[in-house]
């Protein structure tokens, strides 16, 4: 008798979320199966990797990941164009880290100018991120959401402390929204409920359960993502059917494994390879757990993950 592979059927699906406009628009989500289980159902889109750029030069990034952008990262517009034209980025994530009060403390007006300049220079979809300062993000993200009106960006991140203003601005200007909670599946669900109770379309949310790097609690992120996916697919939980975000680069490139010199730790192997592998491994793990949108930094790590996706789809 011929072997028949066992197949699961699921009652729910993940909402497809499209970002950007015109022929450069991309979609993530839409599947009705666990990640890459194309043999069980439909997987209409592959995970989307957005390359991270910043509004200020990445002085705090380790050498390994700063080097590929040395010639362009002094200016967000050149940086964005480099990623689109040379690295063939499918999406960009502009992190307005310079608006943080403990950093350059750039104003919402400064942020608006950067966003407008970048949007004018590139055609690929843009994810616009604040500095993760709940209070400052409120003013910054409201201003940039308006500046990017109708460009179908993703605005982020809305958290429990500031979701009302950010979700309202995102809704008024036709953007998608990242809802972030801190590694707690129940609070993640709760935030999605609260945002949809404001009248925000549940199919325009991206859920960020909070990333963590390999070796620094990735198992928590993995487990929360996996459980969110299972709730979406097996329990048909409409509050958990949003695509998941893995904000990988930011978490990987601040750990010591990505920057400790070989001279100090020869047993850890080559510094450059180590950092790249660390980012690629972290991204790959979260993708397997369910992340449909990844924000990454190193071009070679991104290439590795794209290759992996090619093999898995």
């Amino acid at each position: 008798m011929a072997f028949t592979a066992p197949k699961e059927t699921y009652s729910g699906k993940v909402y497809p979320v499209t970002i950007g406009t015109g022929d450069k628009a991309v979609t993530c989500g839409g599947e009705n199966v666990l990640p890459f289980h194309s043999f069980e159902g439909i997987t209409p889109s592959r995970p989307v990797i957005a390359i991270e750029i910043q509004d200020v030069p990445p002085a705090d990034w380790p050498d390994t990941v700063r080097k590929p952008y040395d010639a362009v990262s002094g200016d967000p517009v050149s940086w964005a164009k480099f990623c689109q034209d040379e690295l063939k980025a499918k999406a960009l994530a502009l992190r307005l880290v310079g608006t943080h009060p403990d950093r350059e403390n750039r104003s919402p007006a400064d942020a608006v100018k950067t966003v407008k300049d970048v949007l004018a220079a590139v055609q690929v979809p843009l994810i616009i991120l604040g500095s993760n300062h709940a209070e400052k993000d409120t003013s910054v993200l409201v201003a940039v959401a308006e500046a990017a009106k109708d460009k179908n960006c993703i605005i982020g991140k809305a958290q429990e402390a500031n979701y009302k203003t950010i979700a309202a601005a995102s809704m008024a200007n036709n953007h998608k929204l990242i809802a972030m909670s801190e590694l707690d599946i129940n609070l993640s669900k709760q935030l999605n409920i609260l945002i949809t109770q404001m009248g925000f379309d549940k199919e325009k949310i991206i859920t960020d359960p909070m990333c963590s790097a390999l070796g620094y609690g990735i198992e928590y992120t993995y487990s929360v993502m996996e459980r969110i996916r299972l709730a979406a697919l097996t329990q048909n939980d409409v509050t958990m059917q949003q695509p998941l975000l893995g904000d990988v680069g930011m978490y990987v490139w601040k750990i010591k494994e990505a920057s400790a010199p070989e001279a100090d730790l020869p047993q850890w192997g080559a510094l450059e390879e180590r950092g790249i592998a660390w980012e690629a491994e972290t991204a790959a793990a979260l993708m397997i757990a369910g992340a449909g949108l990844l924000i990454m930094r190193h071009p070679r790590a991104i290439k590795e993950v794209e290759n992996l996706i090619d093999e898995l789809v």
Partner: protein
Amino acid sequence: MLIIGEKLSIIAKRVREAMMKKDKGPIQEIATRQWKEGSGVIDANIGPAEDGGEELMQWMVTTIQEVVPLPVCLDTTNFQAIEAGLKVHNNQWGKPMINSTSNDPERFPILELGVKYNCDVIGLTVGKGGLPADAEERAHIAAEIMGRAMEYGLPLENLYLDPLVLQIATSQDHARHVINAVKMFREMNDPPMKTIVGLSNISNGCPKTLRPILNKHFFVMLLDAGLTSAIADAHEMAEAMKERSIISDVMAGKEIADKQKMTEIRKTVDVIMGRTLYAHSYLEM
């Protein structure tokens, strides 16, 4: 169903202040109310009580029993404080109860007190390490506690097995493990083992309006599983008893006239059974 009135706990600000000031008024008022509402035992939770625990427990036991003709459940990790309390406990109102022994060697000597003073003893099914993962692990620990009780000479009918209720807001899966554990505990002896839960911990950390709803449904589901006693709010549990038949009807798939109530019951039972993911606003979805 035996209700151990839960309200005299050091965690409550009013109770803590009364304990510190040795102000009998609030303690006796709360104890009396719980007695009138149907509690059969009054819990006296004085916390770890490292300093002055003996004196405090004696004061609590006598203060409660001055106005209420009920036994007291002595609830502290301080061994000496429990023994001091047992010495002044008025057994005319019933057998005192001790909260608790467990599978942690430090908690074994509690069983000696249980034998020496002829008490009921709560056996919390946790060990020295982490929390039990599921119902099976709880049952395994329960078996060890039962074996130890027999070694020490505590009759099994004096032992109340407690499966350890965890917060649904952070440990949702444990709600159904606790229900299953109660069923398993009962089957571990003939006549069935007595069981007890710290009921309202299920809703700890949940919005205020949600707490009684979760408490009552969980209580009814535990009753169906064969639970024999609960450390709980007697007033709330009396309300739960009134709602028991409609909750059971909805759980059995019957339609009831009050559609809003029916939805509330269905959603709450689904959350407790882990069929939908808990969120503070689960009733609004």
